[in-house]
């Protein structure tokens, strides 16, 4: 592969992702409100929130925290760019794990009980979804013979018909990453929870804006990963990703937030169990 096109795509993705991510979050809030019988905020609300946060004065309770929050952003950006450069999926997920670690480090650095509780739960979340993502990459290798994003495009069949259970498992990971019920244990989007937004407790103003921006990137990255399950043609994958997104919102609204132990059990049982079952079936049947 020549590098010209991937670089153009990656640059475009990096530039467009905030827009797409922000609109997705806006859609999330709008749809959630509608499901709850409310009018909801305008679609552009996330951008207003972002702009407002940028303009606020900051309150810093630990220097290390602000360093790590920037690292969180930049590392996510790295993973994001790598993905859109068509690179190795495992590398992308490892770097993404580094980013998640940075977020946890930032919260742990703050010495606030709430932030630290949040960070510990964030780590538990990572314990839940990391294996799923790694195994999903392996599953993609099973089907395409390569670990790179590029190889998915080179394969001549869509993945979803062969990896349906893997897709379900990835939905679990997506639910955790999107911080949606029943898995929003570390820092729920709804502020009414016992940890006062956990990892984000000690951040304010521009730093919070940065975290929000990173979430947008993360969201777009995960949606793009979901779209990989059907890239022949690509628009089917995009539709599937949107369907999955809607499904997450739906589940968020029909379920209570569960405890971490349940989350771990569910993601390992459903997530890992499904992937393994799918791989076993695949190697038995083909």
């Amino acid at each position, binding site marked *: 592969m020549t590098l010209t096109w991937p670089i153009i795509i990656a640059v475009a993705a990096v530039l467009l992702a905030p827009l797409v991510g922000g609109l997705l979050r806006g859609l999330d809030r709008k749809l959630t409100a509608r499901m709850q019988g409310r009018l909801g905020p305008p679609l552009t609300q996330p951008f207003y929130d972002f702009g407002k946060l940028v303009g606020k004065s900051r*309150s*810093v*309770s*630990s*220097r*290390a925290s*602000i*360093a*790590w929050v*920037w*690292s969180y952003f*930049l*590392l996510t950006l*790295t993973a994001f*760019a790598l993905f859109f450069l068509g*690179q*190795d999926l*495992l*590398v992308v997920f*490892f770097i993404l*794990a*580094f980013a998640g*670690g940075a977020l*946890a*480090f*930032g919260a*742990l*650095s*703050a*010495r*606030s009980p*709430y*932030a*630290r*509780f949040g*960070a*510990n739960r964030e*780590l*538990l979340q*990572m*314990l*839940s979804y*990391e*294996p799923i993502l*790694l*195994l999903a*990459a*392996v599953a993609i*290798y*099973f089907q395409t013979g*390569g*670990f*790179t994003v590029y*190889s998915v495009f080179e394969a001549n069949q869509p993945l979803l018909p062969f990896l349906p259970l893997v897709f379900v498992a990835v939905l679990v990971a997506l639910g955790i990453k999107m911080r949606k019920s029943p898995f929003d244990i570390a820092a729920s989007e709804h502020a009414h929870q016992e940890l006062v937004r956990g990892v984000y*407790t000690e951040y304010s103003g521009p730093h919070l804006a940065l975290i929000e921006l990173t979430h947008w990137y993360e969201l777009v990255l995960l949606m793009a990963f979901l779209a990989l399950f059907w890239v022949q043609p690509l628009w089917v994958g995009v539709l599937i990703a949107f369907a999955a997104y809607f499904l997450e919102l739906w589940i968020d609204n029909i379920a209570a937030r569960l405890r971490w132990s349940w989350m*771990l059990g569910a993601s390992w049982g459903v997530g*890992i169990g499904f992937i*393994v079952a799918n*791989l*076993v079936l695949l190697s038995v049947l083909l």
Partner: protein
Amino acid sequence: MSGELLVSLLVLLPVAVAVCCLALRNAAAQKVLLLPAMVLLMVAAAALALRVLPEGPFALTPAAVWDNIVAVLDYVILAYFLYIGVTSRNGLVLGLAVVLAVLLPVVQFGVLGGHVAVSPVFHIDALAIVMCLVISVVGSLIVLYATDYMPAHEAHLKLERTRQPQFFFWFVLFLGVMNGLVFANSLLWLFFFWEVTTLCCYHLIRHNLTDEARENALRALWMNLVGSVAMVAGIGLAYNNAGTISIQELVTGGSALVLLPLALFCLTGFTKAAQAPFQSWLLGAMVAPTPVSALLHSSTMVKAGVYLVLRLAPGYADTSLSLLVAIFGAFVFMVTSLLAIGQNISKRVLAYSTIANLGLIVCCAGINTDLAIAAGIALIIFHAVSKGMLFMAVGVAEQQIGSRDIEDLDGLAARRPVLTIAAVIGMLSMLFLPFGVAFAKWAAIEAAGAQAGWFIAVVTFLAVGSAATLVFWSKWLGRMLSGPVVETKEPKPFLAYGTILLLVSGAVGLSIFVTPLITVLIQPALSGMGYDQAFDVAGWHLRTTFGFFPPWALFLAVAAAVLLPALAARGYRKELDPVYLCGVNVDGPELWFTGIAGEPVQATTGGAYWTQLFGEARLTPLSNWSALVLLVALLAGVILR
């Protein structure tokens, strides 16, 4: 210099220095002796590498009389073990020593018929060079570190009579023996060195002579004796089945008949590498002074175990044994990583992490493809550097803070900035891409994923284990980074800090230059073992048949992502705001709040260990039994085939 000289230097210099140490009672004199000696050892290792790497394996066979000397020494050591068993009234040690005392003559005289000429006795290929470099460089640095550490340690214990001579005797001896071990091609010689490492380890663990130390040393001894028994049995079987006790011949012979001995040797390797269910000896070894832990965990002892498994890998490639070894290794990796989550003693976390990484190396050997073996070798190198350094850092912290509890390391950055930064880099290098250990993990997962069938289990274990690694490192790492500013001066003993910083830069440097490292060291080692090249190193990237890893680009990105914010944050000079405490902060001191009866209460933020899930009480029996079942399956699978 001639190869012979270099080899003898690498083995005998430490022995000689060790004997000198026993004679020198003065700490300063020891330092004066050890510094040049260790530098010499490093130079010798480098010189040997420069000779072997371009020219190919180097063979050496000492005069036949040495075979006899070694045989006699075997019995001397055995007699000593018996003596220990009797005096300590430890049934297990005694029993195993007796078994060994019966088995060894039977094998040596009955099966082997007295004397078997092995040619060559020493076979020094690139893999041996990798090991030798690790032992000589990392090991030597730890020795230098120990020269700073031990006087402080003894001062802390208020010893009247210094026990440093004994300490350094066993300590330095270890390096020579390890070098011998990795050079040996004759299984009998290997066995001899193997026994000496057990002996060194026993003495180092019991160095402090507390009841606990004695007890744990005995545990280490009997567990390693299990391995010795298996090894002797394996030697007998190997000769019986294949007619040779040369490792090279066994491995390249490819005869199905040697599988059982190979399985026994793997078992031996597992005991030495403290794989479950034998992990308790390594955990118990924590009672020894920190340099011992650093040495055991990084470059010697446990590495001998995985070295053996890796060395034999070509011999059992594409067999069910290989698969079972992979599953076993992956399982140990997962379960010990999970166990580490529940630990609050820093050294125990490090120990579990060591066992996990060794499990990963074992697993790599079991996966047994080019990429996997390459990953295994890379892991040996990177793990030795990072883990040795982490132990050293924790040791210094323990001496200066007076605690090895992770809780007490909370906010270490404010008190010991240099040490903290070193430790944090060390941890990051254990944990995240683009650093070497994670790179090896990446390669291992891709290699395992590329195999079908039962390797799905391996991949699953690896994936869960790798997530668990993330958790236990992160929750420790994150807590050290900020704390209440305390105006204390950080004492920085020169050799201790110097060696730590050297290793830190080593960990980072090797990771950055992983491409040359692969070309120079790992590729020759692979071809020496009969594998193909795992990586296409054209350009600045590492390309496998199915994956892609751009180390330099990643380093640039990650360095920018971590260092720039850190520098910027250092510049933030505004006053810090109090943390969120529900509006009841007490003004002034950090983390106090108004509690019951209007009195100030200090908020504490202890770490999370989730012991009801990951505690030893819950997981250890589970893991031991499962590992035992796997081991039985491993042997049974080979026997019943």
